[in-house]
């Protein structure tokens, strides 16, 4: 009975992994297939990676996406970490309400938020007499930061809650200034949470389609927007090629994070 149950669980987990990875695997394999029509039999060729290297639009969009995602990661992670520390370690007027207000944006559909942001930026632009500023990379970045902040605050906050305030108090009694306490105690302890939060921020921004689509002016696109546009025009395995690159990069990032987590978190007995 026990063995049977074991086998059942194992089969189920394999099924889950197949369900998750099969489409990705097929897509990656087809990036190396010569046929532009995804026709079989499989014939290995790097033609779509070469085409990609010459596709300026896609590359430019990719660069935009990376730059925005990186900027978003830095800004949202810094602001969010400070906010999480404030929420977790200080008492101030209106704290409970402010914390409660962090939740709704996660639940509101991005389409609605995107529309709201577009309307808002237009209104600001008109009010200032420069309607042009309503759209652009800066607007996209602002939108992404607003969107990813709650995630950062939650992830860092969860890590913060795992550690007693007494650690910071102890540092203060030992003569550490508030800045030294933050840098030498809070930050190292929070580091795994901050890295995870940064990854979230990067992913939220890099994947973001709706807000980027709404706030992108003509001629400027991000990768998801450009991929969407290409698919509408009829697509080639170039899309597979760039997707494969993205997947490799993100999986590499995740592996680094997994390593770092063990490093900064529960390292035990192996020294």
């Amino acid at each position: 009975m026990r063995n049977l149950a074991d086998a059942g669980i194992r089969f189920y987990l394999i099924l889950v992994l197949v369900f998750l990875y099969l489409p990705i695997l097929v897509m990656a394999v087809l990036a190396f297939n010569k046929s532009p029509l995804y026709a079989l039999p499989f014939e290995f060729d790097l033609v779509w990676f070469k085409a990609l290297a010459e596709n300026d639009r896609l590359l430019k969009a990719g660069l935009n996406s990376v730059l925005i995602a990186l900027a978003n990661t830095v800004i949202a992670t810094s602001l969010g970490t400070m906010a999480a520390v404030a929420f977790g370690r200080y008492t101030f007027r209106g704290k409970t309400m402010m914390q409660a207000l962090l939740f709704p944006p996660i639940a509101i559909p991005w389409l609605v938020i995107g529309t709201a942001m577009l309307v808002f930026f237009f209104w600001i632009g008109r009010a200032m007499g420069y309607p042009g500023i309503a759209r652009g990379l800066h607007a996209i970045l602002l939108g992404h930061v607003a969107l990813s902040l709650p995630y950062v605050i939650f992830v860092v906050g969860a890590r913060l809650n795992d550690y007693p305030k007494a650690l910071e108090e102890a540092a203060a009694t030992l003569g550490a200034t508030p800045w030294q306490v933050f840098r030498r105690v809070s930050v190292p302890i929070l580091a795994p949470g901050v890295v995870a939060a940064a990854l979230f921020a990067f992913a939220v921004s890099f994947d973001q389609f709706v807000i980027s689509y709404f706030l992108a002016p003509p001629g400027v696109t991000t990768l998801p927007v450009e991929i969407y546009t290409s698919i509408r025009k009829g697509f080639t395995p170039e899309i597979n090629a760039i997707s494969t690159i993205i997947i490799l990069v993100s999986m590499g990032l995740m592996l680094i994070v997994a390593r770092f987590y063990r490093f900064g978190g529960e390292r035990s007995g192996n020294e």
Partner: protein
Amino acid sequence: MSEVAVKGAVKHYGTVAALDGVDLTFADGEFFGLLGPSGSGKTTLLRAIAGFIELDRGEIRIDGTDISRIPVHERNIGMVFQNYALFPHMNVAENIAFGLDVRGVAQAEIKQRVGESLDLVRLSGLEQRRPRQLSGGQQQRVALARALVTRPQVLLLDEPLSALDKHLRQEMQVELRRIQRQIGITTIFVTHDQEEALTLSDRVAIFNKGQVVQAGSPRAVYERPVDRFAAGFLGEANFLEGRVSGIAGGVARVALGTGGEVLTPAADLQAGDAVLIALRPEKISIDPAPADAAAMPNRILGKVVAAIFSGSSLTYRIAVGDRIIIVFEQNKSRAPLPEQSAVILEWPTADNVVVQP
């Protein structure tokens, strides 16, 4: 080293007074225990001295200097926390060095002083261990070394031994006392463990509802509690209610409400005063009552309700009239007195302590 003086300390949380006018002076080099039920203000006072809490009113002076408006990191204090609060991302040596490092002490001196501290707490050789690789007792020692290495003026201990098991706790009590004596640092510690407080302290203060009920040497507070709360909180006590029926030769004769009479030092009592007397259970001697036994002052008759055996001692619950008197007896060779047997309880006049209700 340093004297700490608290004057008129008041701290309110909403309408609750955590500290309601506390005056205490901690003498130079003294080991001082703050005792009381939870919410009595003892921890609030400790945290106010540390600087985590700002008093609404009152002042805290170390060697005459008012520190109550100085931020935590500029006060020269050492503190050991309940769960030690060792930095998990640093090894033992780094934990201890932290206070010197943030003060900008030179590396060579840091190394030397960390070594000295480890010697003091007898942990040499564990420099490279992480806190989680240490036992509870070792973590406690690291916390102590870390708190002392900066040569603070005052050492604050917040329930320092509560996370240890009983055996280790007793060992650490001895260790704590040894280290404290060796350095001679003024030490203030909070505990809810009365035995620990009595064992370790030069003096104790008993807190209730944000006020100091009584402060003094453990023996003075135990033997001469001022009121019902102090008598009941520190150790066990029987309470006898009565009225002074006469005074002769410095001794007051008190007629108990439940019948019987006791004698107590008269002090400033007057005939007719209603009094409450605290009587420690171990002061009473208990014996089987002969058939012709008669009650006398400080000698009453009762009946055993329960005899509870706990190894080195016995606890008797004795029915006297409609109330119960607790008696502790050392476990000598005599067999425990059987339940329902008639007994005589006797005790000296000096052990009847008149307390405030």
